[in-house]
């Protein structure tokens, strides 16, 4: 079946005339620009997820699954164009995406307009399932709060003093706020918050201030490429008895973290961490197909596919949004990170996270997160913010 729809017999908004045998899914991801790596991980994960979920048939409940990937270029206006094109021209039933919170937020209102389900992956902004949420939005990705809670759970305890270092951006500030809340609930004390210019070259002043605050731990929230690890080492932070902690990033970024080997922290995913069949399958398939292991956001894409297929199975192939919402609220589905559940209130998927330490092992040529313990989905459940 051709994916492109015919210009002439296109139905008006809302009605669906396409052949009932096909389910279409649109994937929005940054395939160019700074977030391209993440976008590609999502797409690969999604493809493999579909393959796994359908047992390779690419069919669910008697319907064929087709998907179309569109590049958002990490620009909100492009994301909206692409989403509309997916919804209009391709008549998709679901949208999965996107790599940046901005793009995703820009697309959210469309989902309400078109009454279609969106599975958010891997955008993290809390507001997606918070104040900007609408009922068509589900999220398999973890949100900033979940990250923060996982981070806090990994190191916070009664009486522990912690300083934070984050980029001076929405991502950093949100993350620290959530982390602070979670850590303080666990009895830790945040002694210093440091925000650095995200495009800066020199973080030594920031680090100096942290050193002055003399915390036991330094919790770092950092996304994007230029990172403070080397400078933390240059400034001998660890030698001064400050333990560094952060969320372990993707493999390419792990390679740059030699300087902080030994740090305790958490991660969303590393392929060596989960112990289940799906993950084994994913790693094997991914290696076969792409010649490398799955990375940080691959299981997210996978999970999105699993969520969709599971929902369709349960709905018997019905793609009507109302039915799907009903089906998906509270739905549990399998992923490479173990089962996830869409919480009914804000459709955020609760999921396992991992407390880790960063170590050098023989197995990998880069510092690798080694499991300390799994953080259960209950432990890392973020507050509900969409009211």
């Amino acid at each position, binding site marked *: 079946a051709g994916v492109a729809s015919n210009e002439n017999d296109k139905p008006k908004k809302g009605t669906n005339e396409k052949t009932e045998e096909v389910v279409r899914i649109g994937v929005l991801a940054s395939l*160019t*620009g*700074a977030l*391209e*790596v993440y976008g*590609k991980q999502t797409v690969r994960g999604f493809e493999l997820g579909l393959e796994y979920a359908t047992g390779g048939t690419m069919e669910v409940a008697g319907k064929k699954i087709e998907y179309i990937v569109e590049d958002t270029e990490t620009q909100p206006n492009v994301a909206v164009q692409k989403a509309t094109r997916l919804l209009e021209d391709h008549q998709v039933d679901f949208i999965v995406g996107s790599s940046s919170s901005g793009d995703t937020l820009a697309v959210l209102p469309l989902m309400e307009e078109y009454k279609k389900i969106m599975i958010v992956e891997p955008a993290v902004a809390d507001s997606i399932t918070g104040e900007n949420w609408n009922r068509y939005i589900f999220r398999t990705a973890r949100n900033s709060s979940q990250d923060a809670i996982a981070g806090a759970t990994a190191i916070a305890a009664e009486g522990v003093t912690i300083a934070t270092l984050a980029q*001076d951006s929405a991502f950093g500030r949100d993350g620290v706020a959530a982390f602070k809340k979670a850590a303080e609930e666990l009895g830790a004390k945040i002694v210093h918050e*440091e*925000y*650095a*210019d995200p*495009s*800066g*070259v*020199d*973080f*030594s*002043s*920031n680090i*100096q*201030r942290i050193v002055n605050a003399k915390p036991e731990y330094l919790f770092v929230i950092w996304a994007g*490429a*230029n*990172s403070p*690890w*080397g*400078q933390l080492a*240059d*400034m*001998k932070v660890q030698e001064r008895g400050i333990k560094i902690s952060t969320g372990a990033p993707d493999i*390419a*970024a792990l*390679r*740059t973290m*030699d*300087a902080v080997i030994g740090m305790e922290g958490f991660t969303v995913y590393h392929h060596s961490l989960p112990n289940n069949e799906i993950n084994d399958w994913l790693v094997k398939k991914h290696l076969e197909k792409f010649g490398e292991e799955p990375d940080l956001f691959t299981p997210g894409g996978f999970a999105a596919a699993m969520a969709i297929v599971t929902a369709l199975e349960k709905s018997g192939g019905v793609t009507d949004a109302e039915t799907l919402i009903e089906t998906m609220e509270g739905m549990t589905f399998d992923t490479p990170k173990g089962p996830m559940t869409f919480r009914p209130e804000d459709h955020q998927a609760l999921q396992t996270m991992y407390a880790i330490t960063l170590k050098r092992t023989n197995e990998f040529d880069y510092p690798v997160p080694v499991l300390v313990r799994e953080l259960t989905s209950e432990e890392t459940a973020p507050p509900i913010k969409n009211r």
Partner: protein
Amino acid sequence: MDLFINITINGLATGMLIFLLAAGLTLIFGLMDVLNFAHGALFLWGAYAGIWAYSATESFFLGIVIALITGMILGYLLERFIVKPVYGNHIQQILITLGVMLVLSEFVKVVWGPNIIQATAPEWLQGSWEVGSILLVKYRLFIIFIGLVVFFALLFLLNKTKLGLVVRAGVINKEMVQVLGINIRKVFLFVFILGAAMASLAGVLFGPYSGVIYAEIGLEYGILAFIVVIIGGMGSVLGSMIAALLVGILGAYTAYFIPDLSLAVNFVLMLTILIFKPTGLIAAKEVGK
């Protein structure tokens, strides 16, 4: 006191790095008056080619050489095929060099992949000395050293030879310089290659400084170079040096004392300087024709 010394040294090192980044642009934009938006791409390619050679051969020195060669080749190609037809036309320069910027930035991903790449300093430049509570990071001292070398070399080249004069004259009136028997095309080509090589040098030195390189550094730091050249005063190497150090040191102090202003500090600096000194720190000589 030690604190101030620490902050100052770090700011100084960052400033030097920024100077290296801007020095090439001082020649190409400040002196030759070419709005080269592809400057960041030269920086980027220096970083990638240099770090690649460095990790392949494990010789940092070789990495630097490769970066310089890369810069020179790119500079040559850029001047010959892109910039030469648009000398003196800023509008065309903007468009065509932005195009080159896109092409080169994206092409990096074709060659080296889209992932970030780690860059560490060579063994002998790793770590730091502690003198009392003053922390001297070796690599930063190295940057300061290289920065000074480049600075004096440039000063010499521009002030002790006819080159600087000829380029300035050539920008004002290219025909007339040729009438005086100088092959201005060759001169421009030479200066452009020099500027490009310096951008690439800054790139490869930036790698170990930040620890990682990635395809967006060209875009991210390109603007900074323009800021430095402008507030330093067009075409003044000394001005660029002062401006770069100012940006570096002020950035370090702001980050320490008023971190909330960090994001804005460069722009506030530029705003204040230009309002009080509308032609930059070391004012390019303004003349009513």
